[in-house]
């Protein structure tokens, strides 16, 4: 054994001179007494010299290292001492190559990693890469978003040489590796820990989507889309994500290329993808506005180094109503039924058998035919140019849609869209770009019952009151009335019959009552992104959203005449009326975000911090003028009365700080933390800011070494928790306000009157949604079959609630307080299958959502049953603690009394309507069991919220052909139908009532007839709401079916055309629903939803052409 003194760690003092290495080593040996073994010749010691240096109390090793520096010699310690050996030369080479896409075009930005060493790089703008490695045999892993990851094995690298690889990536169609746009960035689907669903342009291709909101139908679990009318250009779609989470505006936040914008002015053809952020972790980055979910729309952009392509897509076709009621039009039957109904409701009838006989020979009118076209044409064209050079990409598109209305007259929708998306790489570090879109919509709307009180509700184009007047007129006019009298004038009822006609001649309405809406919308943003140091990027974006709307509602005077006597019966809109609304709003958004990404070994870090501010200004001028001299000139200023004007205006602002931190270990353990702090102008200074954190984690079990189930190749568990906010409330709920609208006349002069209109609440703060989500993602058979499931609970508390003031306060506008609580609990599942069997490719998808919505409390200071509020009297919509939002409340109908004995044995029904029931009338449940049917027997009789949502689709392809079908449906959802579905809502009766109860036909489904709201049964329909009028509008609908053929490339190769695809498509082809005579998709929050227009079946043929 050697003593410590003889080790290489011993301290020595030695003076090295300018001498040969050979000499120096000899001196070193002597001084240290170390055993040095070496072959001087083999090592070529003589060719080395060393420079003089004095060492004192230095370790031997340091001295030896000094001597051997700049040589090809190193040393080893062995049991025998120090052995000098030659250094092995590092034999090096390079792997170079180019990564291309399927078309052979360069793919910049793809990641190339040497699996064995972990060394990696990204491809340059020309698609090339270069990685120096030592000599050996390697495996390359090439990955790029939206492409299948490729492994290139057995790459042999020889000393001093370059090994060149030409790599072609295949685009990845499997959902697991798709890139999903998330808040302020994008992620691979596999990296996501929250609940995010996305649809791509492929899912939308070729469908006759007239308004972009329709793109969400049936494809995304957790999303409930309801369009309340089939009116062209005015579908009034509501998007609800995982239930209604607030009593205020429950609309999802919609961002187009990062800027808040309405969904419906985007040309659907321009959409690249739509992401729906559903849980707290995915949405928390949008904090204050994300409680109801976020929809991110990304528009198409060009690609670097790609040849310009011109895409022309077009379709044309016809639309038709899905369903229209069958009406009784035979005059004899009609008048007989009317007489029966009148007698049942205790009303005398003046017309006689002779009158009935007289009308039997007269032609009758089906007023629905007067209102509706059989079919209406639709066409859409988009032309787009996209491409890119080595540093600039561009995507320009121009779209035009024309959809004729299904209601006769001048109704149609014209949409013009222009979009320009440009990105430019100025330098390696600086990138700038812009997205600018302009749209113009011209909508000729159908006549509606709208509020005309200028000082009260300003009129607009949403359905109110009686809904669509043309449709309503079709249901509520006498078929015995001709459209025109003998002189070609608008006819009305023969007065001598003694019947009522409270609806105006529908043709007259169509010709004389109309509204034109013009929308100009400009949406644009510009950004600049700068890479400060490697992996640290800063991006600034400024967006601008300007919307201008002009809405002109004209009601021209017209007269109606008795077709028999010729007498003038009534003049409608005497003097004519004009309502002109001009509205504009401007939103400016500016945000700055900074991202940093780092990989250290198997650890991947990403961090994002940002600042966002947004402000909005809106203004509306409404002008009303009456009494025009001529129906030919109805413009502001040409009327006889002074125009009355009203302006409303307001603004809001939002300032936010946000951040996200992602950590991913070895693609197995995923973690994400989000934070946002928001300040809103809508809250008083006391509670202006709110904090919205979220955390989420994921475990990719299938990436663990122990996971070895061949057919089960993906298993991922996800969990998230977070808080979200909602600021969608009145603009100034914190402020007490004096409004100068309480005017009063002294003499005949109007004096301005002022009064406190709102008592503000300076302590108002954000309502908070706490959202928890647990999810699982699974893949089978090389992910041909994927299954995802999520369970979620969303609790919203401190909801900004308009709690009714006590009447003694004398201020009717409620003060807004943080009060109510709502819970949405449910689960959703998404199953997809994709395979290729021989030459046939097939695919199927199914998604399913169950949401249970419960109002936990409205006014916490009230107890139990007292905690209920009637939201809308005419719609019979209530908020009741423990029930879903907007339940229907009233009397439970148990059936139809068949005879007097049943009535005698039943609880006392006479008190309820002040009329005793007769056989054929409704039997009503005695809920409180006190033997008397009265207002205490009201109960919840319907739930408007569908608990169940689902969609499924099939796809198949063979050679150039492909076929797809998309079904969509909702489970049980109730609607309260208006009296226009009952018999004789003044006039008109649907054929279903032929099966009414009569002594000879003791129906158990249709009661005996009545007129309007008269008599016992009539009393159940409008005010004393009874469950008979609550109808289930569950439906399953073949939303879309499509057959397409892509012309083979071999045929096209000699032409300038690159790609040509032709197709036929049908929308809403089949509907299965228990709702009779009316389309099940309709306004569900108002009673008059009955007369909203049915959805349309649309048949189109189209083509996609690329050259």
């Amino acid at each position, binding site marked *: 054994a050697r003593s410590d003194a003889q080790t290489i760690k011993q301290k020595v003092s030695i003076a090295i001179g300018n001498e040969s290495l050979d000499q120096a080593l000899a001196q070193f040996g002597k001084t240290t007494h170390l055993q040095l073994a070496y072959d001087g010749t083999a090592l070529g010691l003589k060719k080395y010299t060393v420079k003089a240096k004095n060492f004192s109390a230095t370790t031997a090793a340091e001295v030896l290292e000094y001597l051997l520096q700049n040589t090809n010699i190193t040393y080893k310690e062995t049991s025998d001492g120090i052995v000098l050996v030659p250094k092995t030369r590092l034999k090096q080479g390079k792997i170079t190559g180019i990564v291309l896409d399927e078309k052979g075009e360069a793919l910049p930005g793809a990641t190339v990693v040497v699996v064995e060493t972990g060394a990696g790089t990204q491809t340059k703008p020309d698609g090339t890469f270069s990685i120096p490695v030592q000599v050996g045999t390697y495996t390359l892993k090439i990955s790029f978003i939206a492409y299948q990851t490729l492994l290139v094995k057995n790459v042999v690298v020889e000393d001093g040489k370059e090994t060149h690889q030409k790599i072609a990536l295949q685009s990845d169609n499997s959902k697991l590796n798709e890139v999903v746009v998330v808040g302020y960035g994008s992620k691979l689907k596999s990296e996501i820990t929250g609940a995010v669903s996305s649809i791509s342009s492929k899912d939308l291709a070729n469908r006759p989507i007239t308004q972009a909101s329709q793109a969400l139908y049936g494809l995304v679990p957790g999303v409930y889309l309801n369009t309340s009318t089939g009116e062209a250009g005015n579908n009034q779609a509501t998007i609800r994500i995982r239930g209604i989470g607030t009593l205020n505006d429950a609309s999802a936040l919609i961002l187009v290329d990062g800027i808040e914008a309405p969904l419906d002015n985007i040309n659907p053809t321009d959409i690249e993808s739509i992401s729906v952020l559903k849980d707290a972790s995915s949405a928390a980055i949008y904090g204050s506005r994300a409680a109801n979910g976020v929809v991110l729309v990304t528009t198409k952009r060009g690609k670097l180094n790609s040849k310009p392509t011109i895409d022309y897509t077009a379709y044309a076709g016809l639309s038709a109503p899905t369903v229209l009621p069958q009406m009784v039009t035979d005059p004899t039957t009609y008048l007989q039924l009317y007489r029966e109904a009148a007698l049942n409701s205790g*009303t*005398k009838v*003046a017309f006689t058998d002779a009158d009935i006989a007289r009308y039997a020979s007269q032609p009758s009118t089906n007023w629905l035919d007067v209102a509706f076209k059989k079919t209406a044409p639709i066409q859409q064209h988009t032309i787009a140019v996209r491409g890119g050079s080595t540093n600039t990409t561009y995507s320009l598109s121009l779209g035009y849609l024309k959809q004729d209305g299904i209601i006769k007259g001048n109704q149609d929708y014209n949409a013009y869209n222009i979009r320009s998306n440009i990105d430019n790489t100025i330098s390696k570090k600086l990138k700038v770009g812009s997205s600018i879109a302009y749209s113009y919509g011209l909508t000729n709307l159908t006549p509606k019952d709208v509020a005309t009180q200028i000082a009260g509700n300003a009129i607009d184009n949403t359905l109110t009151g009686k809904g669509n007047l043309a449709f309503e007129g079709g249901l509520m006019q006498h078929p015995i009335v001709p459209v025109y009298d003998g002189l070609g004038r608008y006819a009305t009822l023969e*007065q001598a019959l*003694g019947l*009522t006609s409270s609806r105006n001649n529908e043709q007259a309405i169509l010709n004389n009552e109309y509204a034109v809406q013009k929308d100009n919308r400009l949406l644009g943003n510009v950004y600049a992104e700068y890479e400060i140091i490697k992996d640290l990027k800063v991006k600034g974006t400024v967006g601008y959203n300007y919307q201008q709307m002009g809405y002109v509602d004209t009601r021209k005077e017209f007269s109606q005449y008795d077709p028999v006597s010729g007498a003038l019966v*009534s*003049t409608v809109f*005497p003097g004519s009326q004009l309502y002109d609304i001009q509205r504009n709003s401007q939103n400016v958004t500016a945000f700055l975000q900074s991202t940093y990404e780092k990989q250290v070994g198997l650890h991947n870090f990403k961090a994002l911090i940002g600042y966002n501010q947004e402000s909005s200004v809106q203004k509306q001028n409404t002008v009303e003028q009456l009494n025009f001299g001529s129906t030919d000139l109805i413009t502001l200023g040409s009327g006889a009365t002074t125009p*009355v004007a009203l302006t*409303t*205006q*307001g*603004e809001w*602002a939002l*300032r936010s700080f946000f951040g996200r931190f992602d950590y991913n270990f070895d693609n197995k353990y995923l973690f994400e933390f989000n934070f946002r702090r928001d300040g809103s*102008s809508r809250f008083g200074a006391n509670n202006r800011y709110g904090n919205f954190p979220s955390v989420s984690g994921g475990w990719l079990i299938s990436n663990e070494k122990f996971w070895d189930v061949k057919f089960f190749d993906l298993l991922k568990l996800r969990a998230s928790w977070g808080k979200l906010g909602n600021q969608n409330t009145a*603009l*100034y709920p914190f*402020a*007490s*306000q*004096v*409004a*100068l609208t*309480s*005017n*009063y*006349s*002294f*003499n*005949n*002069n109007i*004096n301005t*009157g*002022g*009064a*406190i*209109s*709102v*008592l503000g609440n300076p302590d108002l703060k954000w309502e908070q949604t706490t959202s928890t989500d647990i999810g699982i993602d699974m893949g089978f058979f090389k992910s041909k079959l994927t299954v995802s499931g999520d369970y979620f609970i969303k609790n919203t508390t401190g909801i900004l609630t308009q709690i*009714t*003031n*006590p*009447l*003694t306060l*004398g201020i*009717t506008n409620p*003060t807004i307080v943080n009060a109510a609580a709502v819970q949405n609990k449910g689960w959703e599942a998404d199953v997809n299958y994709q395979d290729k069997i021989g030459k046939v490719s097939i695919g199927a998808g199914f998604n399913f959502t169950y949401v249970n919505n419960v109002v936990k409390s409205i006014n916490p*200071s*009230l107890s139990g049953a*007292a905690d209920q509020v*009637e939201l809308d*009297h005419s719609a019979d919509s209530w908020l009741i603690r423990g029930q879903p939002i907007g339940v229907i409340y009233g009397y439970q109908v148990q059936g139809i009394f068949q005879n007097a004995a049943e009535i005698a044995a039943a609880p006392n029904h006479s008190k309820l309507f*002040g009329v005793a029931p007769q056989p054929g009338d409704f039997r009503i449940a005695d809920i409180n069991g006190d033997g008397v049917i009265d207002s205490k027997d009201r109960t919840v009789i319907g739930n408007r919220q569908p608990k169940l949502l689902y969609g499924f689709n099939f796809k198949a392809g063979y050679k150039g052909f492909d076929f797809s079908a998309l079904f969509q449906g909702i489970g049980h959802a109730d609607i309260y139908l208006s009296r226009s579905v009952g018999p004789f809502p003044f006039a008109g009766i649907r054929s279903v009532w032929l099966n009414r109860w009569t002594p000879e036909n003791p129906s158990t489904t249709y009661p005996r007839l009545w007129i309007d*709201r*008269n008599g016992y049964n009539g009393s159940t329909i*409008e*005010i*004393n709401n009874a469950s008979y009028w609550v109808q289930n509008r569950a439906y399953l609908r073949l939303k879309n079916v499509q057959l397409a053929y892509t012309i083979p490339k071999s045929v096209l190769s000699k032409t300038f055309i690159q790609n040509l695809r032709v197709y036929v498509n049908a929308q809403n082809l089949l509907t299965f629903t228990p709702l009779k005579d009316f389309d099940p998709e309709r306004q569900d929050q108002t009673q008059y939803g009955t007369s909203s227009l049915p959805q349309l079946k649309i048949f189109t043929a189209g083509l996609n052409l690329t050259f």
Partner: protein
Amino acid sequence: CKKDFLTRLPQDTLSPDNFYNNAANLKIGLTGVYNTLQNAQLFDKIPELDAISDNSMLFKYETDLIAFSQGNAYANITNTMPNYYGQPYILIQRANELLDNINAPGNITQADRNDYQAEARALRAIAYMRLVYLFGDVPLYTTFIDKATSLTLTRTLRDKVIAFIVTELQASAAVLGTKPYNNEKGRLTKQAVLGMLCKVLVYEARMGKRPWVEAQTALAQLMTTAQGAGVDLLTTGTGANGQANYEAVFLLANADNKEVLFAVKNNDLNRGVDLSTFYGAGGGNLSVSVHTNFVNDFYGTDGLPIATSSVYNPASPYTNRDPRLKATVTVPGDVYSNNATLVPFNGRITKGTLQTDFAIKKYTTLDGTKFNQGQLDVIILRYADILLLFAEAENEVNGPTTAAYNAINRVRARVNMPNVKTGLTQTDFRNEVIHERRVELGFEGQRWFDLVTLGIANQKINAINELGRKFVPNKQELFPIPQSEINLNANLTQNQGY
């Protein structure tokens, strides 16, 4: 960035602190108080309360009032009745806020301030009057209250509220002149305020709570004051056409006529409730059916009830009747105006929603050319009412004196009806006055209060025998305090029987 980026304030409203701290805004604030008179259940939908009296009945929409009119009165009122409770308080709070700030700095005359104060006090008293006769004990407060305070209010005894009303009206009348301030017709005058005071005194006397002589004295003084101010019954043309004389009071062209002491001011640009739509025979809702009992109560032109009248012809029941019948009620065979066109009205056959043969005419189509879509003033107090109140009070104090006869006969003479038979007993004369009030003031919101304060609601309503009408005595003299109010404020008690 601006420091105040997040500070955004309302742009089309003002802050109360700024508004009420400026005397220049006092007139605007007072106008805001007057504005509440246009609320439907304060005064603008004035025929509505007649529909729980024996004059008429509502149909369908006002479910709580309909249930009430059928004896099914309940406290969980949701549709219309809560407005009778809430709308007076809107006026009261606006008046309180104004009165709290009546000394706000600024350059206006003391006379202005005094007048604004007097009008606001009188209007507030009138609102309390409305409350006390419908609900009995009600929260009484006289300064602006916040929400927290409103949640802890208690009910003040009705007699104390009455005492407050009387004091306030007296104080106001002492300040106001007989011409409207600034000659702005529609503003309260001395005689209007005294008139409302007299009504309170008569109501109280009828209920035995105050002496009749107090009312009689006040009415005599009021008539002197009113005559001095040019107030009188209105006639038109030669005055020979009774129906035209009577209708003239309600015509758009005759707004602010000499008979009117106090009215809700409506006009084309600042409309009130569209009464024709609700009640007119040609309106869309036709939500009131007039009781046959009311129509039958109009005498023949000989001044006798139809049972004994020699001019009454059952085959032509609506001719030879008190001219006020056709001015007040649309009867079968009538024509009514529908825009410019006349259409025969065939009674219940024509309108599905009419449950008797009769619809309201007053305040709907009297204009003769177009519907009243809220342009017509709605009269709260007119001189005919004062004359009849005087006749009643005089009879109670001194018996059916000449003065009492003169007062009632003036009202009759205006419509060419014969004088009241002479030599009546005090009781018969009282009944004659009460009858006269019914036919003179039909659908002017008087009948319900007359029935209740006279204590004859039980007798009259339960005699109707039409449309399930019923009155439960010792309960329905008052409306229930809305249950929703009691839910919010446990200090509130409920009226007897609810």
